């Protein structure tokens, strides 16, 4: 009877020691970066330009996009449409959700995470940034745009990625063609941003400033012609990206993968998930459990950057094709673990947070990567001394912006969180704090 069965047998794990395999292959450096910045500062256009100049996107595709963009009178959006593919995004000219794309230089395999700049879509930006090793902050250098960005999301995004653990930042000073490649404009922005970023906790040697023009393409892949900006001798955007240091990967820890997307991978892969492996390793055939649902599944195939692989390690953004699980058990933000070490599900936690705005007991949305859930700050436990972490004042009535405090948070429903995870607290559409779960 068994021979009559048409069901595909569950794939057997090869029982590889993935960490050893990883070290044996001596892989090419890989890195993912999130593109952040205020709305309309040219993030998507810059990424479209980068992919086109690196021949990831061919002339024919771009011509087609140009034609479509012309048809609705938005010809300057053609490059951005490489990243902004949904109807809504194209009709409104605004990125809604972050887009993932890949390219390779001689030294590194890159993953682009192009985040939305509009303040309403910061939850999506947080989801994108949680998958990144470092960040590219795009700033519009044209008159008034830089200044309005400062009041808007330029600062908020920078603070967010910093509190989510990003240490390296490339500042792309965009639309230099509109500023006529004026050196003093570049220097002015550089000085203002440096002062702010250092105060926000970035180290000066980890910040690189690159002037460029995304729409026309100067200094993105190809250096800017000397007749336009003889004063600039620094790297192009691509060489600055190549210069980013590799981040350490927590491969030895238990597997944690945050589900960012659940979709149908095709006829032979009816259920697929994607996300970044925050820590640990996995291989095809592994039995996994999705928390908080607690449902088990097995990994049929693994894809990294559209290539099928046998195993994957922390830091990689993967697509897992699953079997033996119903999609109703999976939600955005769930955590995939191995059966041997599942993550706990909690409804309450204490966190040490840096206050972006005044903190009071009351409603908050708790964000961790792609996960967001509503909850409330139950109590302000104490304000802490910034450098020593000692308790400065117990049970404060209110926490002032810039202070570090321990708060206790209760969530609407049980969520998979554990000590050491980085969370962001938001309320009424504003980021009010960010920090670490204790």
């Amino acid at each position, binding site marked *: 009877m068994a021979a009559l069965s048409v069901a595909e047998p569950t794939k057997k794990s090869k029982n590889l020691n993935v960490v050893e395999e990883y070290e044996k292959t001596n892989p090419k450096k890989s890195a993912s970066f999130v593109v952040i910045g205020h709305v309309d500062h040219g993030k998507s256009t810059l990424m479209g330009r980068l992919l086109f100049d690196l021949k990831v996107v061919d002339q024919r595709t771009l011509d087609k996009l140009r034609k479509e963009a012309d048809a609705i009178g938005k010809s300057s959006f053609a490059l951005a449409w490489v990243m902004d*593919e*949904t*109807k*809504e995004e194209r009709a*409104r000219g605004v990125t*809604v*959700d972050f*887009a993932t*794309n890949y390219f390779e230089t001689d030294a590194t395999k890159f993953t682009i995470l192009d985040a939305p700049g509009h303040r*309403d*879509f910061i*939850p999506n930006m947080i989801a994108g940034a949680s998958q990144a090793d470092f960040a590219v902050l795009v700033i519009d250098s044209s008159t008034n745009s830089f200044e309005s960005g400062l009041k808007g999301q330029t600062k908020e995004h920078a603070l967010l990625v910093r*509190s989510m*653990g990003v240490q390296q930042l490339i500042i792309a000073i965009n639309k230099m063609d509109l500023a006529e490649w004026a050196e003093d404009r570049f220097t002015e922005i550089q000085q203002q941003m440096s002062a702010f970023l250092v105060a926000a*906790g970035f180290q000066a040697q980890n910040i690189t400033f690159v002037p460029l023009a995304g729409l026309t393409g100067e200094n993105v892949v190809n250096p800017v012609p000397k007749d336009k900006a003889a004063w600039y001798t620094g790297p192009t955007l691509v060489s600055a990206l190549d210069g980013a240091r590799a981040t350490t990967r927590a491969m030895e820890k238990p597997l944690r993968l945050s589900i*960012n*997307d*659940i*979709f*149908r991978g095709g006829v032979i892969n009816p259920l697929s998930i994607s996300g970044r492996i925050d820590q640990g390793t996995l291989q095809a055939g592994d039995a996994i459990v999705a928390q908080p649902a607690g449902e088990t599944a097995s990994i049929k195939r693994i894809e990294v950057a*559209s290539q099928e692989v046998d195993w994957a390690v922390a830091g990689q953004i993967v697509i897992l094709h699953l079997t033996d699980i119903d999609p109703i058990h*999976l*939600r*955005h933000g769930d955590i995939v673990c191995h059966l041997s070490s599942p993550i706990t599900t909690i409804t309450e936690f204490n966190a*040490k*947070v*840096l206050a972006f705005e*005044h903190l*009071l*007991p*009351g*409603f908050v*949305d708790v964000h961790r990567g792609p996960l967001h859930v*509503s909850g*409330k*700050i*139950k109590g302000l436990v*104490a304000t*802490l001394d*910034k*450098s*020593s*972490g*000692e*308790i400065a004042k*117990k049970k404060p*009535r*209110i926490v*002032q912006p810039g202070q*570090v405090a*321990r708060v206790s948070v209760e969530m609407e429903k049980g969520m998979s969180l554990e000590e*050491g995870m980085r969370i962001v607290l938001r*309320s*009424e*559409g*504003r980021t009010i704090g*960010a*920090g*670490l779960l*204790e």
Partner: protein
Amino acid sequence: MRLIRSAIDRRRGEGSCTLLPSEPEDMWHIYNLVRPGDNLRADTIRKVAKESNAGGETDAGSRKQIQRAHITLTITVKSTDFDPASSKLRVSGQCSVENEYVELGQHHTIELETEKQFTLEKVDGWDSIALDTIREACKPERSAELWAIVMQDGLANICVVTPYQTLVKQKVEVSIPKKRIGGVDQHEKALGKFHGVVLSTMLRHLDLTLTPPPPLLIASPGHYAQGFFKYMQETAKTTSNKPLIAFLPSVVVTHSSTGQVSALNTALNSPAMKNKLRDAKYATESKLMDDFQTGLRLDNGKAWYGPEEVTLAVEKGGVGRGGGVLMVSNSLFRSNDIEERRRWVALVDRVRDVEGGEVRILSSLHESGKRLEGLGGVGAILTFPMPGLDEEIEEAKVAAKVGTETGGEGEGDVGLIIN
């Protein structure tokens, strides 16, 4: 609600009254009225065992028969359980007036609902809050309701907002695949399906034939609300759904910070909504909480929250004429502890009658009331600054008992956040 009979001695607060709730909102008021210790008399059904001899002599004794008896019963309330969604209040207690079926002291649960008359007697007297609740509930006009859909990608909360309650009728969650390289079909398809589910769910809850049609607010961050409204318009046209087409003008599309219910206040406070709302009780309460929190942020010593702080502020005469506002969540008056209840009633009476300040009692089923509950259920805006109120209380506490505080277990990764 109708007051059928009142035998309350206004001066001493003793006596009983008979009430007839007529709409769901009334049940919320009744929930706030009925407290443990009160005597409640109402019609109810009880299963009783009746002995019968019909079985003849073959059985060892008489045979018991279970019957459902319709009786009017008086119970002394022990606990209450309110279900906002079905507007039913279950009151459990012990029988206090004996009758044919129930002995004194036997337990029984009476279910109160609309169009069901009952009599309530308060043994320890009717306080000003309870009398206010009856007065408020017996106002003749039907309470205005507003429907709202707060949504974001893949999540929609369908709620109804009345002057005293915000009820989530249904939550719709649909998993929407994200955009991928060269493939947005799944995303667009799932989005269309999501709109379809939200619309059909809404139509199941909302009676479109009411005149005048209840206003519907669709709120979301970004343009999800516009997208859904467009879908609604198109569906109304393509299916020639006449009631839906007629309903479209009473829809307001606005912005909210997220798709969670707690974001509803940002939508209600938007200028577009203020013009639309005839009964703006919830909007004013929401505004009051906003002002209060602004005061807290300014840290000028004029806004205080927490039971001890507010009590002290009232004692010191800070919540008086000329701008003093005391805000109390009505959950405090539902406390099972009589002393606790009396304490808050006394505080309210004092502010209103002696100090001359304004008193606002916020409904704990509204967003503003929930925000206040997060702050300990009570807050006050003072007429003059009183800095250091919390320290005074701390000192008093320290004097009362020796502190056993260790503290200082916080070290670790703060450095990563701030350096």
